């Protein structure tokens, strides 16, 4: 019975045997043409659908409406498509895939071939962007979130409550490791987010697959440890020990002791360049190419002990924080800092840069937390934290975690809206020493004096990873293949610049350059003014004195012309200035106008 009921929508209407009873109208479907609804629909669509498709859709629907009003519908084969044409793509989603600085300037010359080529390539790129935007729908996972009840602050929700509320596998991601003997701990997650590396101040190193809680190796180097860092994959890691830099493999076997790198305090690994950047107590910034084992660059920054360091994941620039409140930006290609920014009144305690390379968050001894736009190097927001933040870390989706003493606070949207209270907070068992968001997981790792805490921070991680870039579920074989590919396309350190897309832009020769080339090919300067050569005159009028006199005359004339021109320009600007002033005065008077000259 209900099967027919289900199908009745699609079949041709059967004349009802009941005459008196009015036939129930079929439920309104959202694709049925309802003129009122239609209007609304169109309006909403206008906002976010591409204009070209919008027009054709509209026209088609109008035609449909017209048919409907006549009372006869044309069915070619079954019902007509309620959604004609390709599916519309929301504009903001296309925007996500647009590359910056893509607009090509028009060529001045009429080069038809080039024009056609450019048009073709532009079409192709828009097509691929649209396809990518459309593919966005198919992504399997959604990001996490945490919402309090009415009147409940999310920052009051404890980790235990969250762990209780979520599924078992997620709740297992909240755990504490009590390692009170060799603390405090620094930590690092591998690029896929599967592996955790812990380094205790008193020489304890442990690396593990933290999701399955499988210990890969645990050693004690019997030396103080300043920092630990995974290299490109989970098979190797670097440890900055008391004196030298060491590299171990995942079984805890010492592979290298690098004596060129001494007193290292902080390290950053640039995964696409295979560069390990180190900052040392002797104020040296050094770059080690880990694929060939060569020191690429070493700079003495001459700014004292370097214990604040982070990288910009967008352009591989290293940011260093200094005790005098400045943050400096470094690339391996320049001996001087690329940029020096005065960020804080006291020393800089921690720096962090977001994934897209747009924002930099710093915290300083002046107990301030500041957000900068590092494309323009301008401050955006400044917050006052009563205790000051010692460690900062930004997650893939832009959550900021800040450690103040033994409390870890997580903030949301620090650069967009003024934030008054944290999104989440958690008290660790000792003062926090290392802080790191786990990539592709809603997890924040906290290394502190009493060991390690893995916190659940809903909404921190990127939900959908790219299998060819960093795949948490990759097999050993896939990892090997990825390693070969990654090594093949290792970016050379010379390509590290503030704008990583510079390489793809057209190098437009400046007028000066073009003019120089022209001069070179022609053999003379076509724009140069001819030098005055006095003609030879007879009857003794070409004596050296007379020639000199004539030369002077010509030079004087030239000068007069120059002066005349400059005076004219001056007059004109003055006139314009006066005019502007007059218009301003006549436009709207203010009380302060009387002080104007």
């Amino acid at each position, binding site marked *: 019975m209900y099967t027919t009921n289900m199908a009745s929508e699609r079949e041709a209407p059967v004349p009802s045997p009941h005459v008196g009873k009015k036939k129930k109208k079929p439920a309104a479907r959202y694709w049925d043409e309802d003129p009122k609804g239609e209007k609304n629909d169109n309006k909403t669509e206008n906002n976010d659908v591409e204009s070209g498709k919008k027009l054709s859709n509209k026209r088609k629907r109008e035609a449909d409406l017209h048919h409907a009003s006549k009372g006869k519908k044309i069915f070619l084969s079954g019902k007509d498509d309620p959604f004609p044409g390709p599916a519309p793509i929301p504009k903001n989603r296309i925007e*996500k895939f647009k*590359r910056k600085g893509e607009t090509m300037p028009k060529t001045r010359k009429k080069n038809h071939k080039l024009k056609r080529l450019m048009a073709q390539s532009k079409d192709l790129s828009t097509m691929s962007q649209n396809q*990518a935007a459309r*593919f*966005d729908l198919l*992504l*399997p*996972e*959604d*990001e*996490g*979130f*945490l*919402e*309090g009840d009415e009147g*409940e602050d999310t920052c009051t*929700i404890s980790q235990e409550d969250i762990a209780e*509320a*979520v*599924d078992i*596998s*997620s709740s297992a*991601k909240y755990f504490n490791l009590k390692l009170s003997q060799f603390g405090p701990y620094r930590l690092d997650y591998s690029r896929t987010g599967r592996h955790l590396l812990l380094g205790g101040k008193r020489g304890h190193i442990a690396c593990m697959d933290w999701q399955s809680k499988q210990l890969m190796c645990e050693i004690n180097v019997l030396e103080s440890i300043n920092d630990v860092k995974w290299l490109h994959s989970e098979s190797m890691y670097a440890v900055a020990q008391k004196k030298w830099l060491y590299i171990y493999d995942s079984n805890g076997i010492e592979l290298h002791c690098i004596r060129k790198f001494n007193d290292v305090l902080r390290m950053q690994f640039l995964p*696409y360049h295979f560069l390990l950047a180190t900052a040392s107590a002797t104020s040296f910034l050094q770059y080690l190419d880990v694929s060939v084992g060569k020191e690429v660059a070493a700079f003495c920054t001459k700014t004292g002990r370097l214990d604040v360091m982070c990288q910009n*994941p967008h*352009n*591989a620039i290293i940011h260093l924080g200094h005790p005098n409140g400045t943050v400096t930006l470094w690339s391996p290609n320049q001996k001087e800092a690329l940029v020096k920014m005065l960020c804080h009144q006291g020393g800089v305690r921690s720096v962090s840069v977001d*994934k*897209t*390379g747009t924002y930099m968050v710093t915290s300083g001894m002046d107990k301030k937390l500041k957000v900068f736009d590092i494309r323009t190097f301008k401050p955006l927001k400044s917050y006052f934290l009563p205790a000051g933040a010692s460690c900062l870390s930004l997650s893939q989706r832009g959550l900021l975690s800040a450690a103040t003493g033994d409390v870890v606070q997580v903030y949301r949207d620090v650069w967009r809206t003024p934030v008054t209270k944290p999104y989440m907070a958690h008290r660790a068992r000792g003062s926090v020493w290392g802080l790191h968001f786990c990539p592709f997981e*809603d997890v924040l790792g906290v290394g502190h004096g009493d060991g390690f805490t893995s916190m659940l921070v*809903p909404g921190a*991680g*990127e939900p*959908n*990873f*790219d*299998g*060819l*870039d960093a*795949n*948490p*579920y*990759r*097999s050993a*074989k*896939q990892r090997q293949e990825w390693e070969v590919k990654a090594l*093949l*396309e*290792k*970016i*050379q350190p010379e*390509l590290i610049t503030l704008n*990583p*897309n*510079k*390489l*793809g832009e057209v190098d437009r020769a400046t007028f000066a350059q073009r003019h120089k080339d022209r001069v070179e090919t022609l*053999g*003379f300067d076509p724009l140069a003014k001819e030098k005055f050569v006095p003609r030879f005159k007879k009857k003794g009028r070409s004596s050296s004195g007379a020639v000199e006199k004539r030369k002077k005359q010509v030079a004087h004339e030239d000068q007069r012309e120059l002066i005349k021109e400059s005076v004219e320009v001056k007059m004109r600007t003055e006139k314009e200035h006066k005019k502007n002033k007059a218009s301003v005065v006549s436009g709207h008077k203010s009380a302060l106008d009387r002080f104007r000259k």
Partner: protein
Amino acid sequence: MKVKVLSRNPDDYVRETKYDIQRVPRNYDPSLHPFEVSREYTRALNATKLERVFAKPFLASLDGHRDGVNCMAKHSTSLSSLLSGSCDGELKIWNLTKRECVRTLQAHEGFVRGIVVRFCGTSFFTVGDDKTIKQWKMQCPGYGEEEEPLNTILGKTVFTGLDHHRTEGVFATCGQQVDIWDEQRSSPIRSFTWGVDSFSSVRFNPVETDLLASCASDRSIVLYDMREATPLKKVVMTMRSNTLSWNPMEAYHFTCANEDYNLYTYDMRNLEQPLLVHMDHVSAVLDIDFSPTGKEFVSASFDKTIRIFPKDGGHSREVYHTKRMQHVICVKWSADNKYILSGSDEMNIRLWKANASEKLGVVGHREKAATNYNQKLKEKFQHHPQIKRIARHRHLPKTVYHQSKEIRVMREARRRKEKNVRKHSKPGSVPVATEREKHVVTVVK
């Protein structure tokens, strides 16, 4: 409290059994793929380097002729067949896949001057120094039959070249005049002369099939319409052209191989100046053939090299040479756009790849996709100095290397002198002549 934490089911990301292929979930978000441009650049650089590593163009050498190879002809219907005629009057038919000679016949006494296969592919024509035109069957003679031509036409003078009409039973020969022959008749249906005593080659236009062009020894290129009684027009250049080839895709364009080391592409509607001058050879260019796509052509030169030029580029994209190859007399581009055949003085025919680094044989889908991607990358970054340098680098024979250097110096000196002359003469009295204008003497209609 409402909470959701990322929690992935590993079953969605790991293959079910080890016989499956691995799952690779993708996310094309640009922020997950930083350094897009630099990585692409690195890939392009690697692709360019690999292209040079894999550039092994030489495939085979077909030996068997007992004198220099003077002319060749492609089969009109079979890709694997090639006909070649040598200076001792011998003609050989080759099977290119097996790389062996399948038939040998003594076609003429003296040189075989020209071979052309009829459009149907069942017979072919040859001309030789013995003043005869012979038509031969493509099939081998049966057991006991003698190798005999189907037809023999005795001409009055020596023939130096011939070409067949694309669709009709008409062919053209050249010698002291250009003759149009009907296959059924033993005398020419039309003869063209324009004050010269010798032509070196004649070619039918493959698109506008009634048009033909010939190179004459008075340094001119003459154009004809087969339907008219008189030639259309001619252009006289500073040096003699040896052969010419029509662009199979652009009806009005042809390129001629000149004695002054250059090749000239003309538009036949405007012969006042060539569209392009193709330079790079360091000795007289003897033969030229267009690729079937009309985008490139190959030229053979007396400097013992063959070069591949883009039709709209002034310099060659590729140069082929071997230690043993002597003066290259004839060259052909195969009809599948993949191979180049060259016949040279030292009696060998050589088979080359048209794209030096191309992989021959069956190419898998993924490999093909990778090749296409690399090709596009190379194209995108081709103007970057490092990539350009690697892509352009070719090893040249010592003589060619030094000679090209010398030619460059000479050209530079000439240019400098001209500049100085201009500088020291009345303004406007020494006009600037572009390279294209320099080589045309007159156009006669």
